[in-house]
């Protein structure tokens, strides 16, 4: 069996009477794309928040690269190599695309307490950042402020940032959302190659993309994982068809 990069065990999160995460256990293994699907309100975003560190679970453990990260803050988890993209793009809007990526390069080098040298003349920052932009096909828009990028370009930029962080695992929260069919197709091809670099936990509503990409799929309904398995197994699982795909069993 491939090495476990990320392992959730018995994760629980309650908001008042609502159990948003109800005993979730799942693993992300080296080289795979593990898709997390489920209807709206199933608790997918709540789960991502707990993995990234913006929400603290009430119970259960999160292990990343063999280490318990449950007590760590967002920034510390990111430094360990947990690269996430946001469901709604979260960028520094006044900074150009290049500077947004440069921030990630700088964070990866662990060197934010340097006070004198201008970043724009620092090839140790600009070159890796430009390379990450080239990989996602955004090099031509490097100098455009993030606020002026199109929706799809911002999603690409988020991925470039995660790449520049040298992430050991990617948490991608609906990367296809709001993209046109062309964009989705291009991104699907890109993610397909990305899994060799680091495994991807992919939350996505675009089923074409999920079925094309996923090695394994977990189905989350009312905070509970009702099934985990290969694409074939999930397609044919009667409980999943009823709960999610909207077909009677």
């Amino acid at each position, binding site marked *: 069996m491939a090495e476990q990069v990320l392992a959730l065990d018995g994760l629980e999160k309650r908001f008042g009477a609502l159990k948003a995460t109800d005993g979730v256990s799942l693993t992300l293994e080296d080289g795979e794309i593990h898709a997390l699907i489920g209807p709206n309100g199933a608790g997918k975003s709540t789960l991502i928040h707990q993995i990234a560190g913006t929400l603290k679970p009430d119970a259960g453990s999160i292990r990343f690269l063999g280490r318990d990260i449950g007590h760590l803050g967002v920034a510390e988890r*990111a430094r360990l190599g947990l690269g996430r993209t946001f469901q709604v793009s*979260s960028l520094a809007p006044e900074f150009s695309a290049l500077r947004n990526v440069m921030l990630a390069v700088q964070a990866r080098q662990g060197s934010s307490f340097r006070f004198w040298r*201008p970043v724009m003349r620092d090839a140790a920052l600009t070159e890796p950042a430009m390379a990450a932009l080239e990989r996602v096909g955004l090099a031509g828009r490097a100098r455009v*402020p993030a606020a002026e990028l199109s929706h799809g370009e911002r999603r690409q930029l988020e991925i470039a940032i995660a790449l520049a962080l040298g992430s050991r695992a990617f948490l991608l929260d609906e990367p296809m959302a709001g993209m046109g069919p062309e964009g989705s197709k291009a991104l699907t091809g890109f993610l397909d190659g990305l899994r060799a670099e680091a495994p991807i936990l992919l939350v996505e509503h675009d089923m074409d993309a999920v079925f094309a990409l996923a090695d394994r799929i977990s189905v989350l309904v009312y905070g509970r994982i009702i099934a985990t398995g290969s694409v074939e197994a999930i397609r044919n699982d009667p409980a999943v068809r009823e709960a999610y795909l909207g077909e009677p069993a």
Partner: protein
Amino acid sequence: MSRETAVSLAFLALLLALPFAAQALDEPFYITLATRMAILALAATGLNIALGLGGLVSFGHAAFFGIGGYAAGILATHAFNNEPLLLGLPGTNQMIVMWIVGAAVAGLVALAIGLISLRTSGVYFIMITLAFAQMIYYFAISWPAYGGEDGLSIYVRNAFPGVNTLKPMSFFLICYALLLAALALFWRLRDSRFGAALQAGRQNPVRLAAVGIAPFRIRLVAFVASGMVTAVAGALFADLNRFVSPSMLSWHMSGELIVLIILGGVGRLAGAVAGAMLYVLFEFVLGGMTEHWQLFLGLILLAVVLFARGGLIGLLAGRPRHG
């Protein structure tokens, strides 16, 4: 040269030309006016590090301004009376020592205030910084050893090696040189890695944390540096007026510094310079016409906030470019 650089240099040249013109016209009062502009610009440049780059709206920077002022006043008083200060150490009439002492004390106080207040944000941060500054203000009022409410006079302007500081022009040039140094610091900080993290934290702290940089420490360092620069301006202000009083510590002063930056341009290199020049000019021209000049200042501020968000620099140089 970018348009902003040109505009910034123009303001600095104008400020430098003002006292020379005054001297040529034999109007020494205007040298004092220009000195006041330079000192307020220095104080506001300090605040601009926290407020402009970091988005930390400190409503308590008068604390640092006043600490600088009292550092100068207390050291000078001890030197004048020939009384030892602390642990047998003497006072001094050397400006450089005062700047260092003022900046060091302000830095420690900023560290303490920052450690607590930077755990909050938005309006809570504004209120906590205000509360700390008011505590120091009331402490100064109720501390009789250094004049309490009446303040403290500096009988002779303090000294700077090789310069006759009693000449208004010489004192102006000292203030101007320090202003240039602070602007250089601001400029390098802004473009550095530290500045990138600080500005990203203003634009989107969630993004900053997501790449693995915790905003807290970055902001704390910025807040301390900001307080230290403002303290040096406070020491100069005490020397200009030859007087320190609790009013330097009052919330009016904190507000004045924020107003200067909004008038000039938040986060812009020469924003504090343009703002201070405009403010002192209003104070002088409008203040000469009516006691209620601040009413007109309020109207101007309103116009800036509604129609010229980038302040004077934004109006003249357009939006900032981040490369």
